[in-house]
């Protein structure tokens, strides 16, 4: 193939055919009307039923991780709550999966599927724990694996956290393609898919989401068994939306219909995710609003034609915390509970500490993941790096922290709080994105119903929005 066929525009124009070969899913089959899409049918027909997912994950030692009661953190929360308040906090220790995070669940089905269909290898585009997960699963199944990472800025400097994630992929036998900052990572991903004919182990395929259902299911069934009640709330760290979607689906499959699904992200507002200069000013490389917001309000910006991660279908609340609060929570987990884990996994723990204060003391709140830790992937590594990038690190009121300028670590646990986002605003913003470039006259009833399901509202909410839009 000539180099001419590989220009940015030429390759991105071939996106759909490359994707079809690399995933083998005909997404058109699930389309209805102008923009409508039968999401449940896709999950049913392409994904795997829960029992089958459990079986496949057990083949490679994925899942069945401990659900640990945070006795000392709960006691601390109660000491600063109103009488009768302060829910029991549990943490699902997902770091104990083979690759060190819950992402092993997501990779398990993709790599299984790739092997079953005779692909030689798998490719994943990720700078996160998912790379290690795909590499680990590929190693167990004797398959080849390429991980494409956004790693360095134009000075060649990379966050220690991402460099560690690259190292572990190599340690698990993967080829790691490290790129500088920019959305064209997707272009390089397509080039590699086309060249290698490998399977697209996307985070956002039905396999990538169905794999997480076991996590929600394990939490719900174990809480019911041990505490005799449904969890009052499950908090999931939110970035691309898969974690929230898959966990919520699993909780529903365990018939916990009253459990509140709370998504939590680190607030990185003000930093531009595609900016070369901002790239190394953040102290969290995932679980932040830079992914959280855009994916919440427009899931189909992903590396598959139709994203199986659709958080607005499931969430009851979306909260953010500061970077300082998350480092503080991570330290609490180590020093009060004796469990040393990586910082990104502590995002939902930070939120749980604030939210448990609102709940009754006979209720249970679950933090649904931890991640492994190690050189580079530790609060000390990230904060040392932050200081070198000119970011101020100090103790104080965490609300004074400014992403890219300062990380303010609380002086006392009473300073931990969450900021709630107005979900209706997120819903409206979703509708705006979904209806961009759509002739509203072509919409049929199924389109409206689809949009209503997407944002968990009735169709009158959607109709009202469209009427306002037209006027």
């Amino acid at each position: 193939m000539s180099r001419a066929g590989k220009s940015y525009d030429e390759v991105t124009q071939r996106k759909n055919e490359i994707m079809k070969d690399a995933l083998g899913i005909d997404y058109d089959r699930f389309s209805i009307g102008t923009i409508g899409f039968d999401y449940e049918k896709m999950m049913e027909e392409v994904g795997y039923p829960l029992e089958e997912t459990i079986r496949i994950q057990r083949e490679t030692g994925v899942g069945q991780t401990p659900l640990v009661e945070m006795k000392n953190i709960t006691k601390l929360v109660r000491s600063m709550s109103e009488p009768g308040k302060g829910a029991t906090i549990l943490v699902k220790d997902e770091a104990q999966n083979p690759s060190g995070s819950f992402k092993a669940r997501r990779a398990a089905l993709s790599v299984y599927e790739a092997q079953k269909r005779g692909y030689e290898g798998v490719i994943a585009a990720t700078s996160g724990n998912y790379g290690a997960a795909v590499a680990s699963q590929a190693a167990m199944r004797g398959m080849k694996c390429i991980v494409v990472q956004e790693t360095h800025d134009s000075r060649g400097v990379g966050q220690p956290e991402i460099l560690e994630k690259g190292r572990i992929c190599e340690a698990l036998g993967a080829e790691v393609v490290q790129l500088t900052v920019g959305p064209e990572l997707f272009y390089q991903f397509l080039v590699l898919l086309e060249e290698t004919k490998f399977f697209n182990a996307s985070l956002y395929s039905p396999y990538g989401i169905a794999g997480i259902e076991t996590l929600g299911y394990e939490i719900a069934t174990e809480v019911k068994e041990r505490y005799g009640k449904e969890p009052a709330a499950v908090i999931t760290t939110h970035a691309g939306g898969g974690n929230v979607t898959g966990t919520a689906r699993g909780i529903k499959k365990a018939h916990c219909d009253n459990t509140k699904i709370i998504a939590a992200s680190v607030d990185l507002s003000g930093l531009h995710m595609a900016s070369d200069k901002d790239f190394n000013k953040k102290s969290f490389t995932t679980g932040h609003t830079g992914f959280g917001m855009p994916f919440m309000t427009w899931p189909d910006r992903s590396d598959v034609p139709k994203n199986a991660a659709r958080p607005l279908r499931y969430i009851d609340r979306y909260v953010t915390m500061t970077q300082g609060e998350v480092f503080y929570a991570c330290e609490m987990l180590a020093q009060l509970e004796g469990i040393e884990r990586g910082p990104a996994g502590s995002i939902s723990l930070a939120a749980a500490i604030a939210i448990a204060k609102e709940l009754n003391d006979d209720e249970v709140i679950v933090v649904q993941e931890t991640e492994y830790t190690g050189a580079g992937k530790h609060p000390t590594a990230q904060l040392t790096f932050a200081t070198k990038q000119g970011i101020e690190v100090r103790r104080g009121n965490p609300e004074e922290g400014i992403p890219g300028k300062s990380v303010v670590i609380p002086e006392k646990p009473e300073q931990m709080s969450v900021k709630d986002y107005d979900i209706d605003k997120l819903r409206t913003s979703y509708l705006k994105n979904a209806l961009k470039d759509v002739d509203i006259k072509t919409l049929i009833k199924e389109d409206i119903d689809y949009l209503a399901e997407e944002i968990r509202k009735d169709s009158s909410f959607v109709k009202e929005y469209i009427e306002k839009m037209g006027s």
Partner: protein
Amino acid sequence: MEVKKGKWVEIHDIILQTSQRAHHLPEDTKQVPLEMRVKGFLLQDAKVGERVKIRTLIGRVIEGELTIDNPRHEFDYGEPVPELLTIGTELKSRLFSERWKDHE
């Protein structure tokens, strides 16, 4: 510096020149090329700075400029962070005041 065939090395290549990059990029990103770094086994004796071919861990052969012989992982746990060091004792003095009161 001469690097022998078979050594574990890192190469560097430009994937997209500034003129070839996507539209709608922030100004600072637009001004720099999209670069790639990959590690693998060197397929011929070469000097740092020369264009070479490597074989990656999965057997793919790719080309680029030889940049590092035997690239080491340079990240670590960082320096002790004073802002983190006292958090444990602060909290334990609240929960177990008898044992930890001297640390208040």
